[in-house]
């Protein structure tokens, strides 16, 4: 009779966000599911939501058998969830009050035939497909012995199977149950096709609700505990990773961080859909940077949500206005939703689910959580870590650009080491803000520790806040030290003065050399003139000497001629 595993088993959708994903569609169709949990764990709400969804969305009318509370009270309590149970009555949703009256006298064994035969007719009349037996343990407790209890539960189970109803039976599992090995109704877990356990614990003062599918015959399911929340529209179960999630498109679009120089440092800004982490000690302007991002997003016309765990939204708007980040108008036109979630109550899971719901309602494209570190005040470390991871996963799958800030404890060591929320490893971009204390000043610095998939500046910049906004200044590094604030200013000034002096002395040297050069030139001219004079003199001297000599020889000739004595040495011509 068993269907081959390839064919998906028919499921009855519960309409509970997250639960249908965990179980791949809902409760086993036409089978029985057991829902166990302590008092106040949400069994009744789960069951009601299952019926309301069936009646409204699946055309599956349902019957609610109330063993514990009266139908009217249940409906009144569920009023706030907006399921309109009153309108579904009695045609699509039938309530049977089955509380044993307090003055009921028990005298011996009994069975549930009266109820079941009545319900059989009722179910046939209204073509019911779903049925809930809420708090079956109440009536079971009246039965005299374990054998009778077992008999009645099997009777009920048979009855359900015979009619092909999708049944949901809820049972209280209290401390007394645990004491008995496996509890009074342990065998029921073997009998049913699906068993779900709800748990409500308080860990370190924070309330934490979890849901776990214990068994599910013939279906794969998420076996882990999943946190859940009873929100304004009912159950909301948080799925760690939705099974069978198609790969999301990886966006390449860049969006502004709200600070233009930071965009430059990031080679164009954040990636859309990325998760950005800003870490820093308190007062390092984490909120301011977040605000700048939110403002830029709103200015682009994107719906944005700003969740603050530290301050009221009004305070944030006022404080950010002092650095020219104007959020008020975006709140007014509805683009920006400011959510103040003071870190007083609730577990990390609660926050996560609440944030998800609010973001969905707001249709946010950009989300700021300031600071995410509040979470590890509430709840165990392990679960908080997984919450941060899930937050990022979820934002990614929704294409929401997520900016989280994390407050670092000033007592603890540098950036990386051991906060339970190791969100930094999963974040795409990590910006670290720090203080540099020098010469009696604290100055803010900004550096990009990592930014996946983008070229980014390796430089530490000084973060300047003024009433005209945020700017980043180059830090002054000289002789291997980084200077900021007035030291940077002083250093810049003194360097400028030094440069000026250098220039002046160079100028002086140049003038001097010019003068020497000019002098040399003058001297050269004078010498040239002298040279020419000397040359002339020399020429004159030569001519005079020659003239004299020829005169002399001419004189000798004449003398010889006159003497006529020496027969001619001279060759006659």
């Amino acid at each position: 009779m068993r269907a081959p595993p390839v064919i998906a088993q028919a499921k009855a959708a519960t309409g509970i966000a997250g639960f249908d994903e965990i179980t791949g569609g809902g409760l086993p169709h036409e089978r029985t599911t057991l829902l166990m949990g302590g008092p106040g764990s949400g069994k009744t709400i789960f069951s009601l939501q299952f019926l309301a969804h069936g009646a409204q969305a699946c055309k599956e009318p349902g019957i609610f058998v109330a063993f514990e509370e009266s139908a009217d009270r249940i409906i009144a309590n569920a009023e706030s969830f907006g399921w309109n149970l009153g309108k579904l009555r009695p045609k699509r949703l039938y309530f049977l009050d089955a509380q044993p009256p307090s003055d009921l006298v028990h005298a011996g064994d009994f069975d549930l035939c009266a109820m079941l035969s009545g319900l059989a007719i009722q179910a046939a009349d209204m073509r019911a497909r779903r049925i809930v037996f809420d708090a079956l343990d109440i009536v079971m407790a009246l039965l005299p012995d374990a054998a009778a209890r077992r008999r009645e539960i099997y009777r009920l189970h048979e009855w359900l199977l015979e009619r092909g109803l999708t049944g949901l039976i809820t049972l209280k599992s209290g401390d007394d149950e645990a004491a008995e090995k496996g509890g009074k109704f342990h065998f029921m877990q073997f009998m049913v096709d699906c068993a779900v356990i709800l748990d409500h614990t308080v860990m370190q003062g924070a309330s934490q609700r979890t849901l776990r599918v214990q068994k599910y015959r013939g279906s794969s399911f998420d076996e882990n505990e999943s946190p859940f929340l009873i929100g304004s529209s009912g159950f909301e179960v948080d799925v760690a990773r939705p099974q069978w999630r198609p790969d999301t498109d990886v966006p390449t679009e860049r969006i502004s961080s709200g600070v233009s120089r930071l965009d430059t440092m990031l080679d164009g800004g954040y990636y859309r859909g990325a998760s950005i982490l800003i870490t820093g000690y308190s007062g390092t302007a984490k909120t301011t940077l977040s605000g700048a991002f939110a403002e830029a997003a709103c200015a682009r016309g994107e719906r944005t949500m700003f969740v603050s765990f530290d301050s009221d939204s009004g305070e944030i708007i006022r404080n950010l206005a002092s650095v020219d980040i104007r959020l008020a108008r975006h709140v007014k036109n509805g683009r920006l939703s400011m959510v103040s979630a003071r870190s007083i109550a609730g577990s990390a899971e609660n926050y996560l689910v609440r944030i998800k719901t609010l973001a969905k309602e707001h249709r946010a494209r950009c989300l700021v959580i300031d600071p995410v570190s509040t979470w590890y005040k509430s709840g165990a470390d392990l679960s908080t870590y997984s919450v941060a991871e899930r937050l990022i996963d979820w934002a990614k799958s929704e294409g929401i650009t997520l900016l989280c800030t994390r407050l670092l404890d000033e007592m603890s060591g540098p950036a990386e080491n051991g906060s339970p929320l190791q969100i930094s490893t999963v974040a795409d971009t990590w910006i670290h803000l720090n203080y540099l204390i020098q010469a009696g000043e604290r100055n803010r610095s900004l550096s990009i520790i990592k930014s996946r998939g983008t070229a980014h500046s390796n430089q530490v910049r000084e973060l300047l806040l003024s009433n005209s906004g945020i700017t980043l200044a180059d830090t002054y590094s000289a002789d291997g030290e980084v200077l900021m604030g007035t030291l940077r200013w002083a250093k810049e000034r003194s360097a400028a003065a030094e440069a000026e002096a250098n220039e002046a002395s160079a100028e002086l040297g140049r003038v001097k050399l010019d003068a020497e050069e000019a002098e040399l030139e003058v001297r050269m001219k004078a010498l040239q003139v002298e040279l020419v004079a000397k040359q002339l003199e020399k020429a004159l001297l030569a001519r005079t000497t020659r003239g004299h000599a020829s005169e002399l020889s001419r004189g000798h000739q004449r003398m010889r001629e006159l003497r006529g004595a020496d027969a001619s040495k001279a060759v006659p011509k």
Partner: protein
Amino acid sequence: MSRPPLYKFRLYVAGDALNSSQALVNLNALCSHHLQGHHQIDVIDVFEEPRRALADGIIMTPTLVKLGPAPYRKIVGTLGQTRLVLQALGLKNPDG
């Protein structure tokens, strides 16, 4: 000495289920012993009249309802514990 009042009972049974039959037997014995005919028993089989059981708010079978005299009483079970049943029905001291 006035006539004892008429006891009106309604017993919801589930066909011939064992505990339902036991209840009927126990009730008959109890009435004949303590009420000497001043009683009326209306037996309703929930398998034959399922709507009625639902309308009357009967969840369990067997259920005995004492319609009169006041006070109205509902007793669930085989009615085997005679003392308890008598006490519940106000018949502790039948000769009084």
